[in-house]
């Protein structure tokens, strides 16, 4: 299998080896314009939810002033966060895919939500990855489906200048709190990867595998000595950088006297650009150091979790307490993401808690963590099912549904922790980190057991720069149509609006007006009103 990964170390070579020089640039990026950065953060949690029909997910009430559900209370009840006025709840959004198409439904959900939805050409509509064979192509549960192009975060990054920053040293970041999500023993990436780069020659998207290890991420982004600088070191670095720019200024000033009049604007523009940087450099010389997060004992190097293995009875089974460290992985990635944003090292992050067929064991692993107590279902019971998350999502009955509720609550709480911290962290250019970040919190299927593609439980946060209508509960589409496409009707193609419409809506709010459709026209009905002011 060809490895299409972009070598992150290569991308960051200039950061990791050039501590003093690179350190000042992120801060310079803010200072040069006096404007706050604009960011995109996509957070994925796996396996949908079984709580859509039982009142545990959807709020009650109207478009404003709604009453949060038990699961949404993570973001609103003040125990972790009070973000109701900073969030938009979407109901009635459809994942743009057909349930008739062959291929793993979780993978299909990943692809349809964040990559260009494809044309319905029958059961074999999904593009196939490199390991596809005639038999996998005809397999209803095929793992070889893939993205037809780059994912939405990468498209936005390429087309929305504000997301590039000055540009930022790291164009985009992909992280995960599950080692299983970075299992590259085959190219079954579609439910592990949430970001795709544009393919060579415009072909299929190239998976950008998420990094599970905080230690590796830390090393990549905060290489030794990069950020822990004393005020004296900062001042010296600023002076050195200024001398470099002064040297270029000298050359340009000399050129000004030599070139014909026709070339003077070119020289002047160059001079202006450097002077602008010098001004920002002067400001950054006294700026506080951008400090990397501190982790007791250092950043975690998680052991690979145990993956699904072939079962003697056929199919696959999960083995062992997979990713028992997932909570700590998340805690450290959370700090890494915050720091990346605070220091403007990147403006585009996609994070996935776990693989779409997640085998993470909550009872035996995650929830044994002493930091996590009180995870009970609405009836006051703790999780009691010994299976992994994906298996739980397909179990029926009260206990299984309650178990999934607990897992959903866990993921909502973790996300709420990050968002709450972002909401109280001032941004250099004004506002909070959350104000200046459009956060999309999503999952690949709606009803986990049915692999539902309608009523996708998607939440939006932050995005003040786009005038996100915080506090809104938007019930989209035609209510009658929505009723016809109940989550249990697994073979339905859902009604509009589609996730692709959501991306077009965001693009237009962002000034990327050229994006009038995302993916095949059949999955586009135009911008969704009410999301942005």
């Amino acid at each position, binding site marked *: 299998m060809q490895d299409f990964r972009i070598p992150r170390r290569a*991308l960051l070579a200039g950061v990791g080896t050039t501590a003093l020089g690179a350190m000042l640039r992120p801060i310079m990026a803010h200072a040069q314009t006096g404007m706050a950065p604009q960011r995109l953060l996509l957070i994925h949690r796996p396996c949908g939810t079984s709580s859509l029909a039982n009142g545990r997910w959807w709020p009650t009430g109207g478009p404003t002033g709604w009453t949060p559900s038990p699961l949404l209370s993570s973001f609103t009840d003040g125990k972790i966060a009070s973000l109701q006025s900073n969030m938009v709840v979407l109901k009635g959004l459809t994942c743009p895919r057909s349930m008739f198409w062959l291929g793993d439904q979780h993978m299909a959900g990943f692809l349809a939500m964040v990559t260009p939805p494809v044309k319905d050409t029958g059961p074999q509509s999904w593009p196939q990855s490199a390991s596809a064979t005639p038999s996998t192509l005809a397999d209803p549960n095929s793992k070889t489906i893939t993205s037809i192009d780059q994912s939405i975060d990468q498209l936005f990054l390429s087309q929305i200048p504000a997301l590039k920053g000055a540009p930022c040293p790291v164009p985009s970041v992909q992280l995960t709190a599950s080692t299983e999500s970075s299992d590259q023993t085959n190219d079954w990436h579609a439910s592990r990867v949430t970001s795709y780069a544009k393919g060579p020659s415009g072909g299929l998207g190239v998976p950008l595998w998420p990094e599970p290890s905080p230690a590796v991420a830390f090393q990549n982004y905060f290489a030794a000595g990069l950020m822990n600088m004393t005020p004296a070191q900062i001042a010296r*670095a600023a002076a050195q950088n200024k001398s470099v*720019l002064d040297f270029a200024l000298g050359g340009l000033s000399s050129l000004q006297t030599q070139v014909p009049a026709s070339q003077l604007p070119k020289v002047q523009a160059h001079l202006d*650009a450097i002077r602008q940087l010098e001004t920002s450099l002067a400001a950054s010389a006294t700026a506080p150091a951008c400090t990397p997060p501190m982790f007791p004992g250092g950043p975690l190097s998680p052991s690979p979790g145990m993956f699904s293995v072939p079962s003697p009875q056929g199919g696959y089974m999960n083995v062992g307490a997979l990713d028992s460290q997932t909570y700590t992985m998340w805690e450290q990635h959370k700090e890494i993401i915050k720091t990346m944003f605070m220091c403007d090292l990147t403006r585009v992050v996609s994070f996935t808690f776990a693989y779409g067929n997640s085998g993470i064991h909550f009872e035996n692993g995650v929830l044994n963590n002493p930091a996590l107590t009180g995870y009970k279902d609405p009836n006051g019971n703790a999780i009691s099912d010994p299976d992994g998350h994906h298996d739980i999502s397909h179990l029926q009955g009260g206990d299984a549904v309650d178990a999934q509720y607990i897992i959903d609550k866990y993921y909502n709480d973790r996300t709420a922790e990050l968002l709450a911290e972002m909401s109280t962290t001032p941004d250099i250019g004004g506002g909070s980190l959350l104000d200046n970040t459009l956060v999309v919190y999503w999952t690949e299927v709606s009803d986990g057991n049915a692999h539902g593609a309608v009523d996708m439980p998607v939440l939006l946060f932050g995005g003040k720069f786009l005038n996100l209508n915080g506090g809104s509960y938007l019930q989209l589409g035609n209510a009658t149509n929505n009723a016809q496409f109940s989550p249990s009707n697994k073979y339905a193609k859902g009604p509009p609006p589609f996730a692709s419409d959501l991306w077009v809506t965001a693009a237009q709010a962002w000034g990327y007006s050229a994006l009038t459709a995302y993916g095949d026209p059949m999955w586009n009905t135009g911008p969704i009103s009410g999301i942005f002011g």
Partner: protein
Amino acid sequence: MKIKLDARTLALLLVLGGGACLGNVGSMGAGSSASSGAVAGSGASGSSASAAASTGNGGSASGASAADSGVGGAPSCTQGASFAPARLSLITDDEYRNVVRDVFGVTFPATVDVTGPPSASGSYSYNENAEVETTTVQAYQRAADQVAALMTSIPTCTAGVNATCMEQYLRSNLPLAWRRPVTDDELAGLMAIFNSGAMDGQARQIQLTMEAALLHPAFLYRSEIGTNAATATGKVQLTPYELASAVSFALLNSSPDAELWVKAQDGSITQPPVLAAEVARLMTLPAVQANLMKLVSYYLDFETLPFVIKDATAYPGFAALQGTLYQSSQMFLSDIMWGGHFSDLFTSRRMYANEAMASAYGLPAVSGTALQAVTTTGDAYGAGVLTQPALLAASNKNAIGDDVIHRGLWVYYNLLCAPTLPPPPANASAVAATFMGSTRQQSLERDTTCGAGCHGRFDPFGLVTLSYDGIGRYRTTDPTTTPPGGPIDDDALVPIGVLQANPPMPFMLTGVDDVAQIFVEGRQVSDCAADNLTTYALQHSPDVEGSCDLQTVKDGFLQSGSFPDLFTSILTSPAFLTRDL
């Protein structure tokens, strides 16, 4: 002079009701040369290519320049004019990579951008009019950091990096990177920067020094301003260093090599015999030949082929053959560039194919995966580049079927340098969607609907390729007729003003082979090729200045048909040694 009375002419007579004059097909345009002709200001329509280059952050030349003399009119030119204005041109990212490779021994990673991602279209671009912004400076800073990080050793520093050996290194290497001598003051400035990093270690010292060296305008700009451009009038002579750089960027896409640099240092490069000898020497270098091949490949749009996407259902197997087709096109081109005549471009029946390609395209059978030369016979693949599968696939932009529009536009702009046309109206797609019938019927309806000066000017050059499907496979029946499988009709009428003729007249084309014949009999296509390749070599459209020396270059190319001679004549022309103010 010869009069060609063939099917085309007979058809034309019918079209014109027998009353039209027959054009002189054998000598399109007026006369053979204007090198000593009238001086009539700048050319009549010579600015469209430079207009493309003057917008945004640079230019993109894909053959869209206008004919230097206006179609069918007498060429006009400016006696003594240069090929280009006095200017500073920001180096391209490719040039950046090449210079740091050749001067500092650093291979800049392909996965890391200098200022932006590589082209995803295969079009040739340059920075003649680009301006630097703050983000550009920061991108150059990061690129310089990258170069510094990859400098694993400083050759003059055998026992650790210190000021003495670093200064030696800069003295010996920096002039080549800057393409001019480095003054003592400049060197002192760099060493002060180097020394300012002493407390932070050698890596930081090298980083700062390389940032300063590579952010300096002497590195970032190609300078063609002579010595007194700020006060002079008329034109300036390039300095020896500027001339050597202009030659090396044209031929190597990089800094001068050592021998050329010596001629710049002693000033002898400005002597025509020395310049000619250096150009001749350089033309023998494999790196130069590869670079020039690339330029011609850009001109012919072969470089767009790797970016073409075809529908896998409509054309199964195309993606797997795409690399082979590109390689085949390069071998076809190489034969003509280094051992053939320009006219072979349109008459050659030699193709390169392996077993898979030969099978897919119905070419004479070969076996194995290696590309081998085959010679076609019969009606198929007999018009050189016009019937090269790579070109037919690349110029056919429709992923699922025929595309006479873009095939026609490719000929219209790339080969004919015909006048620039306005963009289609906003409702063009909606109107086109109402057209029914075969590909040919839709084209004719399109021509009728949009009227004169529109599709009728270029669609005919696409219609003549109807014997080749969307990926360039020869066919004898038209799958788009009703019922499918009707005979191919690849006749097409070209209106007045596209193909040069004296007097102006419409042309009836009877298939792609007929078009090829017209192209080799006239000079319009040869002149257009010379125009485009001069633009690539200069990174500027010489039509702006309209130098009569350009006409000399074109005349020479028409006579010799030799690509190496064409580049040689551009670089040794008097108009290359100066720049207009």
